[in-house]
């Protein structure tokens, strides 16, 4: 007798519970959130971007007096060529000789490299030149430009 009564009570309790908590179906929302999470995880790149740091001088007129440094002139590449001719101290120098030329340069001009390049020289050649200069310990690089108002 007693047992039956208790069973009835628990059944009633569970029924009440069911009525009290109308459950939301969470599954589709979780599916979508997971999908978004995976998308953002995959599309995020934490790898840094490699580049060459260039610190521009503050705005203003370039100094009129001639800065001291190694001057490399780069000519426009000839029709079929990829690289323009480079001239250092009135001599034609190629990339293989450039490093030793920089290393052996006199101390007073070694702190700065001035690149006088023509417009059509490829970006790659200038980057390579800057790369060699950095390896040779020259940390200041200047680009010669034509003053224009």
């Amino acid at each position, binding site marked *: 007798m007693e047992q039956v009564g*208790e069973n009835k009570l628990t059944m009633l309790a569970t029924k009440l519970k069911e009525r009290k908590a109308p459950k939301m179906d969470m599954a589709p929302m979780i599916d979508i959130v997971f999908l978004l999470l995976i998308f953002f995880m995959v599309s995020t790149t934490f790898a840094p971007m490699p580049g060459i740091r*260039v610190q521009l001088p503050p*705005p203003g007129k370039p100094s009129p007096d001639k800065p001291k440094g190694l001057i490399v002139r780069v000519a426009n590449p000839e029709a079929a060529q990829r690289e323009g001719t480079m001239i250092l101290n009135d001599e034609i120098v190629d990339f293989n000789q450039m490093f030793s030329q920089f290393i052996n340069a006199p101390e007073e001009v070694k702190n700065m490299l001035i690149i006088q390049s023509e417009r059509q020289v490829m970006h790659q050649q200038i980057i390579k030149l800057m790369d060699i200069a950095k390896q040779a310990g020259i940390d200041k690089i200047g680009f010669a430009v034509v003053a224009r108002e």
Partner: protein
Amino acid sequence: MALQLKRKASEQDTELQMAPMIDCVFLLLIFFMVSAVMRVPPPFGFPTLPESSTKHEFPRKKFNIFISPDGRLAVDDEEFLTLDELDVFLSAHENQISTLIIKADKRAEHGIVIDVMERAKRRFSKPEGQEIALAVSEDD
């Protein structure tokens, strides 16, 4: 008897507690959404970056200036036809750019790269000078 009843009750709600997991997932989702920097290609496609053995590392940011081999300019997916348009853009976004990233194709003309740097120098009024990152190829 009481023991039996208890077991029955616990068998009935063997539901997993979802709430903490959902909290965690939402937190992760928000973190990745905020930290994500989208790779936006310029209208002429990603340039082939030049190679260099000395390189710095820069964090990836929005507002990359792309320069194509034939001298076309773009900031992210927006193309600029003249340097003056770029000028206007740079002045408008000056506060949002700390290091200006220039992604110039290795076959791009040096003159255009210099033009862009010249504009950046004039446009940004930082007393110590604007910092620029000339992007180079990722593989050695």
